[in-house]
């Protein structure tokens, strides 16, 4: 049971973030868009736990209401690479031969560049914005999923239950989709949860740099960027979104690690 504590903690954090995303109005003490000129750049106080920004907006409320965008980034930034990568890994692992060789070299090529540099390059070419960021993430991120999936498929492919399925005269599509995929996909899914932590960090970094989510869209990276000019006078403006990024990263990491442990036991 004690081994499950990290997983539970991770799920708790992710659950809290999801709550923030779905019903921010329940949790946020103020309307995130209402200006309060009576409290410009107010430091943290019982009224404004994380202070206010240069327009007097409550930083905590703005941070909570940004959770939706950031979770959406985490989800979309992982789902597309996952789908593309898993499909490619499944195909290359199952068929092998020239198709494996071609994609293998392509994966090597993509992997030679630092991840962030390559994503920024794609965004620079496509132009800033969330959609283009997702396209860039998909173009670069599929590689790790494809590699993981391919390795798992190779392991499963050599198992006797797959040989048994072939002797039973099952079609290749059935063998791959019904027998190999359910066994190969679990570690990939566990990795995806961990990967969400990285994608949130990446999404906020790009938001901060002005290449991801665009202001006035409330996004943690954008919120931090908002506060960067007041870093010396009102550092709390950037603090709350920073804490949320750390919290989200921690939550997804713990949940992902815990999940992969949990799935390992049953094998």
């Amino acid at each position, binding site marked *: 049971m004690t081994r499950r504590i990290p997983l539970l903690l991770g799920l708790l954090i992710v659950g809290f973030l999801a709550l923030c995303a779905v019903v921010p109005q329940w949790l946020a003490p103020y309307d995130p868009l209402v200006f309060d000129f009576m409290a410009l750049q107010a430091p943290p106080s019982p009224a404004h736990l994380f202070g206010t920004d240069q327009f007097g907006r409550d930083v905590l409320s703005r941070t909570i209401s940004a959770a939706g965008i950031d979770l959406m980034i985490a989800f979309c930034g992982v789902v597309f690479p996952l789908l593309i990568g898993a499909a490619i890994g499944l195909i290359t692992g199952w068929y092998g031969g020239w198709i494996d060789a071609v994609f293998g070299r392509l994966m090597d090529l993509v992997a030679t560049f630092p991840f962030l540099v390559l994503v920024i390059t794609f965004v620079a070419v496509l132009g800033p914005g969330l959609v283009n960021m997702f396209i860039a993430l998909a173009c670069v991120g599929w590689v790790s999923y494809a590699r993981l999936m391919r390795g798992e498929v190779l392991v499963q492919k050599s*198992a*006797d*239950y797959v*040989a*048994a*399925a*072939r*002797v*039973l*005269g*099952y079609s290749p599509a*059935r063998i791959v989709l*019904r*027998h190999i995929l*359910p*066994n190969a996909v679990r570690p990939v899914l566990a990795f995806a949860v961990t990967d969400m932590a990285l994608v949130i960090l990446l999404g906020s970094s790009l938001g901060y740099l002005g290449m991801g989510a665009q202001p006035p869209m409330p996004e943690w990276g954008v919120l931090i960027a908002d506060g960067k000019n007041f870093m010396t006078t009102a550092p709390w403006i950037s603090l709350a979104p920073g804490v949320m990024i750390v919290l989200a990263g921690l939550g997804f990491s713990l949940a992902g690690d815990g999940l992969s442990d949990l799935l390992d036991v*049953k*094998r």
Partner: protein
Amino acid sequence: MTALLEVEGLSKRFTGRRSFADMLARRPAPVVRALEDVSLDIRRGETLGIVGESGCGKSTLARCLVHLHNADAGTIRLDGLPMEGMDSAAREKFSRRVQMVFQDPYGSLNPRMTVGQTLAEVLAVHRIVPPAQIAARVDELLDLVHLPRDAAARYPYEFSGGQRQRIGIARALAMQPDVIIADEPVSALDVSVQAQVVNLFLELQSRLGLTLVFITHDLRLVRHLTHRVAVMYLGRIVELGPTEQLFDAPRHPYTQALLRAVPQLTPGRRSDEAAVMGELPSPLNPPTGCAFHPRCPLAQARCSVERPEMREVGWPVACHFA
């Protein structure tokens, strides 16, 4: 008894990966000759044992029989019809009639499917029974292998090795096969559990009229279970005869050595001399002539040059001096 399954001149080679050193030395990629010109017939209703040590090709032969491997040369005939050139429908029919039971009871079942799903899938995919009768047929199959019916709702990891092997047998039976190829089906099981599974094979054979090909390295088991036995050494059959006579008076020097090497259950040391000296040769680089000649006490000059053909000495034996 007529031949149900005939194998003629079957050969299978595996090409290894050509290493960088091989390329530098302009060597070709290494080739393992797993099966060389293997011929045998399997008679309806019999149990044929295939024995031999590692690298003799017995598992490769099993996998060729169920088309997990495609042989490089030779033909396999079922009821006189050659496999080669069959259209896919005929091939499917063939694969229905020849099924396999695997060695590893842990790896040969899909861990994410319940026993019921595993069995039902066979029945549904091949439309062996109408959809409405699948559940009833699954129950029948479980009865047949003496597993409780509630096993259907459980996952493979909830079962012991012997029970899993029963599930594997039930899955093969779901296809209503004529022939079951069993590749070391009890060697991964605990000694006290092996007899249960052996009895199940005996019972199923007499109840369903199955033809069994039993591949194993356990010679005591082969002697007990089979009608005829084929002895393999380094990719070839060296002797093929009726089990009882062959065990009483083996003709091939390798068979003789193999039988002498098996520790008998009756206590007492027979000699300090090993039954046969020398190592198993590498199938990458088999000896010339008779593959057994470097270890054979009877070997003459001729044995290292000329490969002995199969000839009748009461039954087929591949030895110049048998």
